[in-house]
């Protein structure tokens, strides 16, 4: 009986390590990375930085899958210069954060910036 009890206790101790996987961040990380790459290569980030308007960013956020909520911030010299949130939702905590650099050209100069995307599942 004592041996059985010991075995049972050990088994329960190991079983207690089981945990349900509530949210898998990996697919959202991949989606965030692709989203930022698409925004840079399509010129949306540069257009927003040059024009000073966040309409293009809000429109792009609206194209994300319905199960994803997110917000974008553009940084220049370490400071947020523009922000855009997906309409109709908000993340209490960002499950993933992804950043991507881009170059914004104005006449014969350019500025180095990066975009930060924070996202979660709705």
């Amino acid at each position, binding site marked *: 009986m004592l041996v059985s009890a010991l*075995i*049972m206790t050990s088994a329960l101790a190991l079983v207690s390590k089981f945990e349900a996987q509530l949210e898998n961040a*990996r697919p959202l990380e991949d989606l965030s990375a692709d989203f930022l790459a698409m925004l840079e290569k399509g010129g949306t980030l540069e257009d927003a930085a040059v024009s000073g308007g966040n309409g293009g960013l809000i429109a792009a956020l609206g194209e994300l899958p319905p199960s994803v909520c997110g917000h974008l911030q553009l940084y220049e010299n370490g400071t947020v210069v523009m922000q855009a949130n997906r309409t109709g939702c908000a993340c209490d905590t960002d499950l993933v954060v992804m950043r991507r*650099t881009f170059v914004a050209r104005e006449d014969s100069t350019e500025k180095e910036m990066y975009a930060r995307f924070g996202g979660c599942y709705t």
Partner: protein
Amino acid sequence: MKGFVFTIIFGLLFFLLLLDASIYVSSREGAAVRQATYGRVDRAGYAMDDFATDFMGVMEFSASSDKLNSSNKTRVAFSDTIPSLLAFPGTEFGQWTEFIENDFSNATNQNITINYTDFQLSPRLLVTPYNLTYGYSSLGKNELYLNGSAQVSNYSILIHLNRDINATDDSGWAWSGSATPLYVSLNITDNEGEQILVKNQTSGYISPSSLDRVVLLGDPSGNLTIEAGSVSGYGNSSLHLVPLGLSARLNTTVLLNGTPEMAITVPMLVTVDEQQSNLILYRG
């Protein structure tokens, strides 16, 4: 006796449960290690792609390629503007690398370094395995060259100039009367949309081992010199463009013999955490 048998049976069942749990826990720990390793490599790969896109933006340049399997050739296309439109291209390039190594590195908690000393001295892209170089005299892009590669069979260049061209010195250009290994197409327009002909032609064969030169004279000033064939310092089957006092938008397509796996790289060593590579603009 019965109690003893029950104890043995339950003991075995608990042992199996224990074994099962142990296997599950160890497999989860293994998966966590794999996830962490893949995550780091993925992050580095993503950063490299990010920097490659930035690089093309800083250099006002893009490159792409596709394979023409039916004719067993590879087509490489470059879109460019010469000279650089930036007022201080060297300074801007330095600021970009500094931004990556400091601001972005700190924001992403990645250890990033870019060694561009060699590239700064000789800015160029390498098309491997063709031994083709697409390069500039400086970061200001005051001269553009494509060095000779025996695999080049065709240069096709669309040139749009920001000046009116009112005269052309094409006395140094000779289209070949018969087929040669090098075919050149020059589709040149000036700022009024007028097409500029070279010896009354836009395309034809030239000798890859002799120098052909044409100078387009801008009004009121400026000129563009185009050299093809055996260009001094670059070898046979080369191309060399020198703008002086004017600007040219270029779409250059190069046809190369064969369809091996190829890559367009920049000899600029980028290190992201423990991953190190030259900047790759295209691979396929």
